[in-house]
């Protein structure tokens, strides 16, 4: 199945979820849960916590499916954003708890993304990659790391080993450059 029809099916399923269709929710779950768990696990590095967040994500889908507008966003963007936001909120609520089990996420095989959950048409991805490639490799590396791990400026600066001000500057300049590049 190509990305367009998979996107259309997912959009339709979410619209049916808004009408309290449990089978539609099951469809959405079956086609996106492995991808979303990967996203959440990468941020939280704790499977039990990640599954709790994932449960919360699908309950939110169930309760707020009517807020999804297929004209404005792609279904996978909506779902991934929802999952990332919940995972980041959970990460922030941990406070300064020491992170354990980083190895778990990093040990995950870099499997090809599951076809039904494929993230958008390849052209969007190629465009983003093209714009990221125009950045200093250190800066684009920080952008990717921030996206994957949901780290604050502070944690990101520590992880990369640069001062906080430098990291803020890297990320903000990168975002301004990316915006200009992606807008064209």
């Amino acid at each position: 199945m190509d990305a367009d029809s998979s996107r259309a099916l997912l959009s339709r399923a979410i619209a049916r979820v808004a009408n309290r269709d449990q089978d539609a929710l099951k469809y959405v779950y079956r086609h996106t849960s492995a991808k979303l768990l990967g996203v959440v696990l990468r941020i939280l590095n704790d499977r039990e916590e990640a599954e709790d967040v994932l449960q919360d994500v699908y309950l939110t889908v169930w309760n707020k499916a009517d807020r999804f507008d297929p004209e404005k966003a792609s279904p996978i963007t909506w779902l991934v954003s929802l999952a990332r936001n919940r995972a980041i909120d959970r990460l922030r609520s941990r406070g300064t708890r020491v992170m354990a089990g980083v190895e778990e996420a990093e040990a995950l095989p870099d499997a090809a993304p599951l076809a039904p959950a494929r993230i958008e048409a390849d052209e969007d991805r190629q465009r983003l990659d093209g714009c990221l490639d125009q950045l200093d490799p250190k800066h684009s590396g920080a952008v990717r790391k921030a996206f994957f791990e949901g780290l604050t400026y502070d944690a990101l600066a520590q992880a990369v080993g640069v001062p906080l001000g430098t990291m803020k500057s890297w990320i903000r300049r990168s975002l301004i450059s990316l915006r200009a590049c992606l807008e064209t």
Partner: protein
Amino acid sequence: MTDATHTPPNPPEGEERPLAGEYVLGVLDGAERVEAEARLSADPAFARAVAWWEERLTPLAADIAAAQPSEGLWPRIQALVAEPLKPSAWSNVALWRGLTAGAMALAAACAVIAILPRPALPPAATPAPARPQAAEVALIADPATNKPMIVATLDHGMDQVMLTPMGMKMPEGRDAELWIIPEGQKAVSLGVIPMDKPMRIPMPKDLRGEGTYTALLAVTDEPIGGSPTGVATGSVRASGKFAKA
């Protein structure tokens, strides 16, 4: 691109600050995130900027390896989205009979009871019954997964039920209420029960003896403090019947 070695110590602020992008990327700390989220619902231009960034950055997620959720996750979600039963359905005996069918299958699992802790009798202030009767056990299980959620042990000597929760969870802001449904009768509340520690509850007077053998136990989620009406309003989270030990 600016040479990193000449990066100014003070990053761009104010108008220049790409706050929507920072929010989507996830670099804001807790307090800044809360502020950004407040702005999200109050400022449509900011909300559009956030949506713009989400659409453009999400393709990065393609690089993240998928991870298969545990098998129990979907049944859990499914149970949480199940339509709550209407109060009228609760006096419907046929409904309870249907739930009982699942409970019967569980009775077979009751062979494990020997390893369950038996409630200790209090010191003999009164003479102990000459022939203390064996306790009976009910596995109160999730109807979707058949996994035992609570073990209820009936203590005839004291006319009490000892409840041992086994990792049961309620949705946020809901209490677990236990009901006993004697065969052919309406559900009687045994009250709100804790999910994190064992509890003893006295059996209702008119339910002692033979009637308990065939009664169904069920747990529903209810508003904090229990059903306000005396009949269950939430969904059945678990159910099961006693079996003779």
